[in-house]
């Protein structure tokens, strides 16, 4: 019996250590963001701030274009999501439900894309976008975001569409519905669970994306949140409290989102991993 208690205690200690390792850096950042620079360098890493320095947040907020970056991120992520879902939804439907010769080959072409690292297309895309003169516009980042979100989306959506019973389409056809009506008003509405999964996976990766934005954009008014956060940190190197505040602000939207939808997000991320 004693052995069991010891084992249980051991298990709890182990799990708690992991919780502390995972959460403490974030808590530390929160405290850090409310301290003065002299408190931060004083070595009292565990202490609460003597006075909560909301000034750090005011500083970050006013000099950091925060709302502009958030707006850009919402816009870019939103467009990417809509385009990814419509494009890959249609092609997945064609791959799984239409009778045509090249369905499997097309599927394979999309699957190879899952393995291709996005970094390896940076230079050619830059040259292409320069020729299209869309470098330093949001189109230059939305295009690669959509292109690289498509493979996983096609994979997840076609996995689901393959399994829906064909009676659904049959009865719609007897009623004389066109294929477009069948797709948009009958098939899409029942495809909600995999669409959720794709939305969550795409949202997390596009909302957080940094390198493409940093390579293809330079105007401050176009930057997305991660790029904006990095630029802010680069500019205010010695103002520790404000940097901390800006990092907290940078993490805030996605953490809020996670608190509201944590169940859906964890489920979506597992589904995405299982299928990807």
């Amino acid at each position, binding site marked *: 019996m004693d052995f069991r208690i010891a084992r249980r205690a051991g298990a709890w200690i182990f799990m708690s250590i992991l919780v502390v390792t995972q959460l403490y850096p974030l808590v530390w950042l929160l405290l850090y963001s409310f301290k003065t620079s002299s408190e931060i360098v004083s070595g009292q890493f565990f202490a609460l701030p003597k006075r909560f320095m909301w000034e750090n947040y005011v500083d970050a907020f006013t000099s950091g274009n925060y709302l502009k970056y958030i707006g850009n991120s919402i816009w870019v992520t939103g467009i990417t999501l809509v385009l990814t879902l419509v*494009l890959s939804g249609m092609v997945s439907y064609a791959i799984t439900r239409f009778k045509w010769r090249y369905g499997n080959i097309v599927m394979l072409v999309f699957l190879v894309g899952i393995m291709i690292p996005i970094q390896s297309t940076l230079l050619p895309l830059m040259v292409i976008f320069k020729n299209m003169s869309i470098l330093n516009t949001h189109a230059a980042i939305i295009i690669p975001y959509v292109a690289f979100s498509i493979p996983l989306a096609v994979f997840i959506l076609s996995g689901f569409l393959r399994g829906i019973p064909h009676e659904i389409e049959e009865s719609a056809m007897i009623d004389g519905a066109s294929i477009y009506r069948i797709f948009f008003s009958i098939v899409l509405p029942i495809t909600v669970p995999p669409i959720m999964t794709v939305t969550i996976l795409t949202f997390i990766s596009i909302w957080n994306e940094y390198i493409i934005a940093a390579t293809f954009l330079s105007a401050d008014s176009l930057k997305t949140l991660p790029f904006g956060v990095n630029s802010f940190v680069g500019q205010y190197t010695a103002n520790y409290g404000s940097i901390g505040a800006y990092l907290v602000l940078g993490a805030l939207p996605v953490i809020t989102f996670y608190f509201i939808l944590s169940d859906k997000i964890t489920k979506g991320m597992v589904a995405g991993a299982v299928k990807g």
Partner: protein
Amino acid sequence: MAPSVWEGKLVNGVLKVGKWTLAVFVLPCLLFYLAFVFAPIMVSVYYSLVEWAGMGDQVFVGLNNYKVLFTQDPIFWPSVLRTLYISLASLLQVPIAIVVAILVSRYVRRPNFLISSYFLPVILSVVVIGQLWKSIYNPASLGGMLNQMLIKFGLESWTKTWLGDTDWAIFALCFVIFWQYIGYHVLIQFTGVQNISSDIYEAASIDGAEGFKADRYITLPLLSPVIKISVVLAAIGSLKAFDLIVVMTGGGPANTTEVISTHMYYMTFNSFKYGYGSAISTFLVAFCLVMTVLLNLAFKRAEEAAS
């Protein structure tokens, strides 16, 4: 839509549609994808055969870029090894995640809080994580938590500028990757453990298999498909490390944290060696495809050996 377009028929549960309908459904996505994923890769292969600084003429040099890359570049091979090293180090997450998942599902009645706290770093941007850990690794006099902690515990001799130390920077980076993704693996394994029916454990306990014995003979074998997922994710994690390295160390100090993709990035966008950068980029694509094939082969072997 005009009725003439719609020539749909349902045969054995598959729709027979006209050419135009098919084109409307397939071409937008396929062409977009080919134009912005495949074509760039092809263009990149072509660039790898020229010498070009972005402006002026492209001089065709054949395979010379590759020759220089494979035989004269002092950064290249170490960066390949480091990429593999980060992959292997990331694999260590999997056994830890399995143990945690088993413990959580055995001892915790309301596991949501634990699992969510483990998972939280996964959804944060690499920029936030990179900058946060840069602050943690800072020297104590600049507010670095890790060094301040060591001083507090009387281990002053252990303090260092973690990201500026040629021996330690790569470990410091690997730890951050570990920290960010361990929660993902715990979540995946935990879901796997939850999906194992409790009937099996009950049946096993009648046969005297409980605790660690049950884990060894029931949980692990039944988890193997889920373990495979974690292994694949961890192995490709070394590529995701790219942004983190750009944010945290930029490949330094003295190129000791350089991986294939950072080397490609800096050669292309900092040194403007477009042709040379494209050769590295082509190598990277080939490297990823070969890694994927090898991983799949390894899994096939393992499955055959198990059956």
